[in-house]
């Protein structure tokens, strides 16, 4: 099964402010403010390196953080987060990529 490939918003599209335990994100395109906690800022950072699917993203993240041992579980969680972030407009699905 080919997984969807996601692309981060360009860096100039988001203003990010660290507020203790959470990050505040201002999304310029929509004018919306998002308050996000880990792992969302980490996912957005990893995706900013270039478009990736859930497996690619898991690889980038696992180089920096300790992820769940169960790979399937980690991938499922990542897919869920990516779907949520897409709904918020904070990541985009690459056109043409199958799900």
């Amino acid at each position, binding site marked *: 099964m080919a997984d969807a490939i996601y692309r981060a918003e360009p860096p100039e599209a988001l203003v990010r*402010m660290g*507020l203790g335990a959470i990050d*505040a994100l201002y999304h310029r395109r929509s004018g919306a403010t998002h308050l996000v906690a880990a792992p969302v800022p980490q996912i957005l950072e990893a995706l900013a390196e270039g478009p990736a699917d859930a497996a690619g993203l898991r690889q980038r993240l696992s180089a920096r953080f300790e992820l769940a041992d169960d790979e399937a579980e980690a991938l499922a969680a990542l897919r869920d987060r990516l779907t949520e972030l897409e709904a918020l407009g904070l990541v985009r699905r690459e056109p043409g990529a199958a799900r």
Partner: protein
Amino acid sequence: MRHEIGLAIGPATFRVGSAWRGPIMQLRALYADYPAVDLDRQVPDFTVRLQPTRPWRRFVRPSIFIAGDHWLAEAAPMALGHGLLAAEMGMNLQMALGWRRHLLLHAASVERDGRAIILTGESGSGKSTLAAQLGERGWRLMGDEFALLDLESGLAHPFPRLVSLKNAAIAVATAGLPPARLGPRLAGTAKGTIRHLVPAPDAIARMREPAMPALLLFPRFGPPLDRRPVDPGEAFVRLTQASTNYIALGEAAFRALAQVVTHVPALALDYPDGEAAIAAIEALWSECP
């Protein structure tokens, strides 16, 4: 309109027009020490109109409809006896819906030594009462309802309108004050009995002097005395909820608010009575960096 007055409160100017003389006379008396606004020479920021619900209702069981540049369709008409309250509500509404020069926070604020405490909380948290009491005890009252944050500098600008005291808070906050500083007792309003208090002379004389926020307080009246630090993320959420123009101001508001919550310590303060709160605030102030 038949009767009108120009008012300046902090940086904002208003034209209040009324089909009746009474509310304007009351405003004239209570705002006597505020700087004059000559409506023949100056276009005010906002207009508030107190008009009859129907033309003939000016005479027969008069009831007031609040209109103006900005208004709420569902606002219920009010009794003529509550005309002063209608005017104050009308002015608040213009600020809440129309002000764009600052980030508007639904908050009370007081100042000492050029630094301000911003107190924000839901209706009933006691911020008006606390601000009124602090304003008589060595603090400059900057406002009991709105704090106006400059988007560039982060300075808080005063909006020292008449303080609106409700029910039991009236006796507490007006004890020992001269009757000339009090408006009429307005019984039977939607929020119970209301009485307006003219801020202390220094609050009016210095109403164009901003101050840098040094402490964010989230007071809650009722529970036993308790204080806990509020982290920047929670403070950010609370302040966006307390702002009526955060969304309209976009990125500038986001940056201004993020600056405030990362640089200014924030605390939640539960208090059982005003004396306990004031003692706690004085103690917190002495610990403030």
